[in-house]
């Protein structure tokens, strides 16, 4: 599923007249791209617009055939649950839930429940190498293991697009490298495209396609 963005404009509610404007951005089916920008450059906002968490003031955010900018909030939520996986910075698992339950959540939001949900969640955990941790709480896992679970959670619904926001920010260099490889490998294996934002050079260097926020916005 390709991503097409046209004439996207967003106004920050809490920053007065400041706006984010992206005239054109495209991501092809299965493509992996990196967006680079310092803090305050609007890269997280851009991801939230792509995910449909934020609604733009105007513009088109087309996933395949669906322009989610034209959808209501509830419809965007449903779309996100089914078609988009999201990996936040390191500490984004729900602490009160086991690894398995962290995966059952987005499955539930996408309408997958019961035994089928369980099977899919366990299978996805296994695919990223943390099948043995299904019943563990995040607090009992290493940081690297937590991020594997987070990647599994982003992939469990079989999304067409995975968004990653500084996914390696809190990892040491070695773990960051492994997590990134895992993320890219799993996303490719799942046939999804990947859009990752970061300000870390080592991350950016591993991507073929790299743009800065300054380049895509005007």
């Amino acid at each position, binding site marked *: 599923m390709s991503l097409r963005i046209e004439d996207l404009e967003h106004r920050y509610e809490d920053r007065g007249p400041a706006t984010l404007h992206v005239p054109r951005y495209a991501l092809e089916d299965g493509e992996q791209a990196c967006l680079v920008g310092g803090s305050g450059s609007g890269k997280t906002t851009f991801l939230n617009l792509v995910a449909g968490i*934020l609604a733009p003031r105007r513009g088109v955010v087309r996933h395949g055939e669906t322009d989610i900018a034209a959808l209501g909030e509830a419809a965007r939520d449903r779309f996100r649950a089914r078609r988009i996986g999201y990996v*936040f910075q390191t500490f*984004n698992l729900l602490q*009160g839930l086991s690894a398995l339950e962290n995966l059952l959540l987005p499955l539930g939001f996408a309408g997958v*429940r019961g035994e089928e949900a369980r099977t899919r969640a366990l299978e996805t955990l296994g695919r990223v190498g943390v099948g043995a941790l299904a019943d563990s709480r995040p607090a009992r896992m290493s940081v690297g293991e937590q991020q594997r679970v987070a990647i599994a959670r982003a992939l469990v619904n079989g999304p067409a697009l995975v968004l990653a*926001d500084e996914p390696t920010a809190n990892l040491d260099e070695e773990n960051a490298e492994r997590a990134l490889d895992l993320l890219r490998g799993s996303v490719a294996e799942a046939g999804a495209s990947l859009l990752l934002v970061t300000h870390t050079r080592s991350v950016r260097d591993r991507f073929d396609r790299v743009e800065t926020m300054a380049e895509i916005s005007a």
Partner: protein
Amino acid sequence: MSLLAMVRRAMAQRPLATVLTALGVALGVALTSVVLTLQHELDRSYRRQSAGFSLVVGPSGSGIELVLNSIYHVGESRGLIPYSVLRELESEAWRPYLKHAVPCAVGDSYRGYRVVATTPAVFDPLFPQPEGANKFAAGGPFTLDPVELERVVAAVRRGEDPGEEGERREAVLGAEVARRLGLGVGSEIEPSHGVEGDHHHAGEDRWRVTGVLRATGTPIDRVVLINLDSFYRIAEHAGGRMPVTGEPGLSSILLFPRRGPGKLVLLSNLRKRGDLQVADVPTEIARLLDLVGNVDGIFLLVAVLVVVVAIVSVMVAIYNTMNERRREIAILRALGASRRRILSLVVLEAALVAAIGGLAGLILAHAGLAAGSARLAAVAGLEVRAATVLPVEAALLGAVVLAAAAAGMIPAWKAYRTDVARHLAPLS
């Protein structure tokens, strides 16, 4: 994951807060449930225990006191009316209106149970306790020779000792008296003077038990009945005589009017008499329950206030967690949870805490009532069915859950409005 499972997890993450707020609800609901149950059982039991009684005649004073004294057998007797009133009421003139009259003379007790001196009229099928014609669990009524009674009364009136000639000291026991004291037909009892049992009669004053009444759950279960002539024969019963005339006295007479205008005629005629008082039992009971109801109302108000405070505390406890949960909520939203689902999560949490607390409260209340029921029966003559959950209690539980859900809307609204983009921003 189901919504309920998510709520259970959220609650389990803050076990102390969850338990404490649920406990608050439990206490409020328990308190309310106890007040409601006691109110209901008091009403039911006082009405049931006075069912079948119509009028009571006694010395001038409070009607409620007269009823409590002669039907519930609580409190001290307030004075006497002359024995001649009984004869008068049994005369031809009253026959068209009055079907039956049962005299009572009190003043003795046996090991804490009240002794009531009366005539076999108390065993008439008309007398409501025990109900019907079949009154005895064992044995039968005491005997009383009317001629002998008149002779004793006449002798006492003249200030003479009636002597022991023709004397039969016989007693019938209420079911509880027999059961608790391990007595039966043929046992001998020795009552003492004073309803508190503070003074023993001189000499060997023993009454033989001729019968034990059926258990009824009414005050008669806790009474010892003796024949009236044996009561008048006891020399110390100077207190059983009218002060000036020395005539034998009665504490009260229970009247059972004929159907139709009988009760009204008796009531209006007896009300004109200055020397005695007539009390209409159902009216006095209604007045008493009204009085009690006012006090109950205050208890109920306090109990309901405790519930309200508990529900507010559930709301506040959840509200206070909202700041730390905002990131969690933002993550849920990013994973595809709709705002409405987030709202439901918080509302459901409030309702669930209240439901758990409320259920615990009902269990607590009824366990407490069960534990205290024996004592309530002994002290207040109140028969409490602890195992019965009243419809109003079920309604209370429902109302508490609904109110908590409504209160939960306040933190839920805060959760609903969580700015996802802001709270997803990396923690750096």
